[in-house]
């Protein structure tokens, strides 16, 4: 139930005919905007159909030709879009080209696509399953309890019949894990960089190794030295020309290092443990200034050695 901001008592009246426009016939291609634009109709820019938004007038043909469902179908199945060639119209069709981080679109292709996952997995926010749910499912796959269960098949067979059909249940369970597969879905973790208040999120399961993760983070936070945002966006746009950059956060040469908080709450350097183990213990990421991380580097390695890392 809402506050009725506009009221029913005549506080606001909708101007009807001026603003609304009826399209009497689809074949009637001559079209003008309902609102008075002051200055009359402007010529449609015809070079880039996808970009032709602001003009009035012109024939409907231009619009009918833009980005039909077929264009989308082609793009979704993994081709880089050729229909909208100019960078200015990159938004619509390139949204379906490869993206692997929330809210960010990259025109460079992401190098490592996990096997068995469709192109769908590369589209931001699709299928529309909430992060909360996806992370729950993903954690389920790695839960030690689950793995242990699939080995108690034999134990079940010898148990008494208190619980109906224990064999049936557990055997089927085992089959599920093999056929239907507890698959990795998404694992979004927060990532912050020192000096910037606003954090981002990255899907770790979209990567299979530290190198690609590092590249992705690099792109996300690229001009890491400059505080605040405006210039950074422009620089980022300029440099995303597909150039392959060295993994800045892993080569020890930059001002920043990549660290993560593990499930025990400790901050560790990223890269010290095998990727799978990292995945199972990482809770969030932080791109720390190297000066602050000084204490971390040797310490974390020691800690790693002292406390054996048990694979889940």
């Amino acid at each position, binding site marked *: 139930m809402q506050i009725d901001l506009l009221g029913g008592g005549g506080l606001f009246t909708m101007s009807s005919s001026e603003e609304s426009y009826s399209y009497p016939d689809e074949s009637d291609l001559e079209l003008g905007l309902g609102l008075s634009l002051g200055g009359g109709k402007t010529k449609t820019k015809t070079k880039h159909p996808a970009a032709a938004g602001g003009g009035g007038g012109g024939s409907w043909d231009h619009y009918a030709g833009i980005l039909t469902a077929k264009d989308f179908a082609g793009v979704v199945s993994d081709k880089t879009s050729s229909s909208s060639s100019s960078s200015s119209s990159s938004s619509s069709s390139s949204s379906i080209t490869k993206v692997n981080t929330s809210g960010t679109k990259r025109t460079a292709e992401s190098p490592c696509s996990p096997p068995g996952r469709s192109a769908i997995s590369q589209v931001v926010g699709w299928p529309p399953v909430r992060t909360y749910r996806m992370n729950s499912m993903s954690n389920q796959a790695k839960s030690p309890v689950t793995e242990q269960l699939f080995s108690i098949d034999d134990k079940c067979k010898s148990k008494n019949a208190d619980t109906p059909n224990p064999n049936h*249940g557990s055997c089927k369970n085992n089959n599920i894990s093999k056929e*239907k597969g507890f698959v990795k879905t998404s694992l979004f973790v927060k990532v912050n960089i020192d000096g910037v208040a606003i954090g981002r999120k990255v899907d770790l399961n979209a990567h299979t190794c530290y190198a690609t993760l590092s590249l992705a983070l690099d792109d996300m936070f690229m001009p890491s030295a400059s505080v605040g945002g405006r210039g950074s966006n422009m620089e980022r746009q300029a440099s995303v020309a597909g150039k392959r950059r060295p993994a800045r956060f892993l080569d020890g040469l930059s001002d920043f290092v990549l660290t993560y908080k593990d499930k025990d709450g400790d901050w560790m350097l990223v890269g010290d443990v095998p990727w799978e183990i990292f995945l199972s213990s990482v809770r969030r990421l932080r791109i720390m200034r190297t000066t602050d991380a000084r204490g971390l580097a040797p310490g974390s390695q020691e800690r790693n050695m002292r406390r054996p890392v048990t694979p889940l």
Partner: protein
Amino acid sequence: MAYSFPEEVLEHVFSFLSSDRDRNAVSLVCKSWYDIERWCRRRIFVGNCYAVSPEMVIRRFPELRAVEMKGKPHFADFNLVPEGWGAYAYPWIAAMAEAYPFLEEIKLKRMVVTDDTLELISKSCKNFKLLVLTSCEGFTTDGLASIAANCRHLRELDLRESEVEELSGHWLSHFPDSCTSLVSLNISCLGSEVSFSILERLVARSPNLRTLRLNRAVPLERLANLIRRAPQLVELGTGAYSAEIRSDTFSNLADAFSACKQLKALSGFWDVVPSYLPAMYSVCSGITSLNLSYAAIPSTDLVKLISQCQNLQRLWVMDYIEDSGLDVLAASCKDLQELRVFPSDPFGAEPNVSLTEQGLVSVSEGCPKLESVLYFCRQMSNAALIAIAKNRPNFIRFRLCIIDPQAPDYLTLEPLDAGFGAIVEKCKELRRLSMTGLLTDRVFKYIGSHAKKLEMLSIAFAGDSDLGLHHVLSGCDSLRKLEIRDCPFGDKALLANAAKLETMRSLWMSSCSVSFGACKLLAQKMPRLNVEVIDERGPPDSRPESCSVERVYVYRTVASRQRLDMPDFVWTLDEDSSLRYS
């Protein structure tokens, strides 16, 4: 007329009005009634936290006791809204904590809530009773500790699907021993362990506890003890539903369940071991709501449980249930009103379970009261949709998600226009619709002509041209929320229907063909709409005006269009029609 009754009498009469719509109507009768009503309004719902300012609310309603508010747009759930966009609760809470010392209830959805916010609530509102945070983020267990420690009369603490930074599991111990007022506790979103003994003692001293939703870290072996201390529970969320198969664990659990005569809702069920499901059979006949959407178990086990629950009204389940399971559901649960089927493997290239459109057809045939559906599947046909529409004209919510967003009718390879057209034509009470699949402008024509009661519409990868959007905006009389992603909709339809947007709560369009020029024009012409251009590529005026924006979020507002908390990737129009950004 207004002078015939003393104020107190009118106030007493108004106190029987609970619906906001009625109260709003009453307040428009005359100035005197407006004044009387505003002094006695106790509850308020703000659907968009930026539609109005805290000062305006406080000025008009000086004596509120309960506030419910929503922040980010729905598509934020799917990471389409960049982090840092806004929806901060603190400014609201700060203003209200001062103005409403007797505030009792706060419900927030998709907002950023900090520990400071929680601490402020706990210290300012002496009579605070209810906190529900749905899909919120920004706070830690320290904030929860303040609530536990300071809210002496707390009745409900519900953290539905919020993202909590868990610094320690000991926050629960901050509930003083004297706190015995808990009615509802939902900590299912927490990942880490809480102290079991503290939890047990808390449950034991809360005789009014009706809802207890545990988190995954509570093992099955502990569940029996907890339930035993609260046989009056109406809603229970288990933790991980797995343990080594032992007969004593089983019988403990079964005994504990059998003492719960009032149980109506069950949820949780992570890591299910099917052998333990029969422990619940004694309560199944009373169960009306069952959330098995985290239970990765085969259809046969799901079905065994469900067929015990003849009074089931709501079922959430994963697609492991398969068509065969849905057939059984259709046959057993004649009171079913809501069904949600979630995908177990949303990114898999191939189907991993045998769940198709047939399952939904069966349920629509067999369950006469079915009115709300969320269904993820991999194939759909017009024939199936038409059958569903014929079977079930009483749908209120129909949300279909085909994993491949542009999948055509798999039998005829045609668009699914006819199928969805049948849905909107037959289901005259439809209030919410989400569509996927290959869809042309034609489906929008059907929607515009038939969906007169539709309030919320979600569209993705659909349509051919602006005509599609125009049909919706010009035809759907009751439309309040429209969210669109990746559709070839652009300026014309938007500008031609500008006035419509003021009758709606909000419009979201991302990855469409809306130009920056059109956004500026819309903002210029419609001063009571806030047109937010959300674009991470830098200032929109650094690109041609005809260039499409990444996202635009348009909402009506009586507050300032220059919200003070805009991040650097959001642009709105300034009063002098120049581009303004933070």
